[in-house]
């Protein structure tokens, strides 16, 4: 009797012996894996792995390089755009100032006078609801005194926006004709050319016109 057979039989000696759980004969037995000679992994497979690693490294380096280049290119762009922004801000400021200079009432009035315009004195109103007309509107007459000249803003570099008003026009007291207008336009041009001379004219003592670029009002010039 083999030992296995002996183990299979219940080990009961006499009636005092405890009954032990039975073990099935199959569970204890393990099937041994048959041994065989195994070839180690081939050495030549390591080379592609190294290539792969270097590839990864190279790719990473390349990515970093590309990133770096793009960042620095963007930086150059940024600098350029910032410079452009600054230039445009300055230009905008310049143009805004020019527009404001054109809009200044003094310059506007001087320009209008230069174009031969005169202010109307009497205006009327039409009430559109009642169709009532109030006031007597009269056409503006060339030659009427146009009032005191307020000096244009003394901003450096802005005085050339509008040339100083001509002093000749308010003297003509008759209604304008086409020929007159032409002649006057010529006068005005001549005046503009003869600017230094105009500046030398005596100024009204009572009015300080701040800088002397604006001629004194007609009625104040002594000897005229």
């Amino acid at each position: 009797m083999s030992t296995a057979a002996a183990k299979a039989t219940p080990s009961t000696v006499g009636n005092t012996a405890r009954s032990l759980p039975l073990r099935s004969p199959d569970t204890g037995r393990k099937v041994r894996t048959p041994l065989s000679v195994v070839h180690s992994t081939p050495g030549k497979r390591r080379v592609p792995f190294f290539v792969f690693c270097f590839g990864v490294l190279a790719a990473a380096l390349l990515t970093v390089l590309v990133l770096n280049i793009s960042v620095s290119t963007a930086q150059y762009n940024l600098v350029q755009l910032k410079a452009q922004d600054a230039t445009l801000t300055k230009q905008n400021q310049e143009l805004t100032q020019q527009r404001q200079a054109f809009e200044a009432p003094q310059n506007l009035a001087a320009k209008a006078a230069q174009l031969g315009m005169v202010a109307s004195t009497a205006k009327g109103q039409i009430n559109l609801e009642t169709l009532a007309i109030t006031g007597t509107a009269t056409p503006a007459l060339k030659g009427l005194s146009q009032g005191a000249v307020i000096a244009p803003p003394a901003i450096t570099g802005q005085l050339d926006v509008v040339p100083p008003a001509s002093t000749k026009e308010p003297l003509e007291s008759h209604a304008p004709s086409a020929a007159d207008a032409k002649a006057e336009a010529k006068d005005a041009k001549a005046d503009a050319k003869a600017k230094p001379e105009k500046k030398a004219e005596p100024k009204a003592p009572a009015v300080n016109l701040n800088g002397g670029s604006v001629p004194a009002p007609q009625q104040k010039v002594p000897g005229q």
Partner: protein
Amino acid sequence: MAQNSGKSKTKKASTAKRRLRVGLGLMLTLLLVVGGKLFLVQGLDVGGMAEAGINKRLTPVELPAERGQILDANGTVLASSVIRYDIVADQRVNTNTPEFGRYNSATAEAETVSREQGIKDLASALGTDPAALTTALTGDKPYVVLAREVKPDLEDAISKLSIPGVVSKAISKRVYPNGSVAGGVIGFLQDGTTGQAGIEQTQDEALRGTPGKRVFEIGADGLRIPVATDELTPAVDGKDVKLTLNTDLQYFAQQAIQSQVNNLSAQWGSIVVMDVKTGNIIVMADTNAPDPNNPGGVAPEDRGVRSVTAAYEPGSVEKMITASAAIEEGKASPLDTFTIPPAYTIDGETFTDAFDHGTEKRTLAGILGWSMNTGTVMVGSRLSKQQRYDWLKKFGIGEAPDIGLPSEAKGILAKPDQWDNRQQYTVLFGQGVSQSTLQTVRAYQSVANDGVMLQPRLIDSYITPDGKEEKVPAKESRRIVSKETAKKVRDILESNVTEGQIKEAAVDGYRVGAKTGTSQAPREDGLPGFDGYTASMVAMAPMDNPRFIVEVVVQRPKGNIYGITNGPVLRSVLGQVLRTYNVPPSTGTPARFPQFAK
């Protein structure tokens, strides 16, 4: 083998061991010294080296806050700040650089330029003399200003010349695009930073803003250290100040008053236009107004705003207050009859009128319509001295309006117990009491606004840098006279134009109420007496629903005072204001109180 060389080997080994130990001890001591020093330097910072290093690297840079703009009611810019450049030079660098390299954009290559040529280029850009510029650039001074407030395009051209030692420094410059239009109201800056007059002075804090700061570490090579401290406190720009003024009307009024003052060779003149319904000041025109771009161009006394700074004896415009008081107190009504002698004597004081007349029977309306001192004293003497004082005070005489301009006058209103025998009656027609033009306008505003006085407003709102508008709330209004009294007084004022002597204040299509004032102006040279006149005219329109008040004042006009008139000036300004704001022409029947009693 080991046993053979036993003793000598042991001896040798112990010597080696000792040497090793000594060497190790030495090394450890050295390590301790170095480590201790490291601990002292790094850990404890004995001698403050690290702190000194940080202090040397830390560079604070102030980020300037942009000064706010000043705008008119329509958003027209009256004052703003722009970038300008100062061109400065380091003489040492320029003098010691005989030639320098420069990129020529035309040929697209670098070129070598001599110092003389560089100076010549710079001189032609700046428009100065090359010889003078050479002098300015030669020497050993590290800082010389070559040109101030250069515009950006010129600065750009100069920096492209790349002259050695020449750099540009950005500065902020205040410009006033409308020049002397409202120049006195706006004021000006000192050194481009601090307000010295007008709104620029009083609103300096709001306009200025808070400058920011950036603190960062910079290496010896002049580059910022990227990972070190970098603290940024952004600058808070100043607020914009929006006024209630209208630039176009301001110009119109300034031109009108300047012409008037020129024609009359007067000392000065001013015009105030106020919106009756809001108290907003639309025009504050002065003669010889300063151009804030060059405030030194006018005399110092012309640099303020006379409508608020100049208190003078108002004259007959004050009769409106006397009439209002008498009507409100129940002592008179517009059509009460007064028998007026050529000269009226009361308490030993005799009063006459500006024109000769016999004994006339007049209404109260007629007294104001012909501006009679005699009649006014007759009506006013029905009020007690204290009542006269209280009513003047109630109408804001002796109380400065607070509109945000520097040195606003409150005028002089003496206590009734300090009035002399004549003054107690002269205050009834505006002599012996002084007030500013704005105070007169405010008194008339309360009558125009059904008896409720609104405090005048000049600053409409503040606009924060993010564009939020913060309205300045109106000050508390107060009732001066009842609605009925205000209506009666307005009818008297309208009758002045329709029936009385102020017919030239009439504007076609609109019902106008007006009052003139002529008073003697006290001498300014310290001697007693008077040396001229103050002529004023105040008007409101349209009388069916008053919207605007205009006052024109001319100080010390030359010539016969009874020959001059502010009528045409007032009429043109009032007409322009009414049309600008599209006020519909008047409806209803104009008041026509008879001037003479039947």
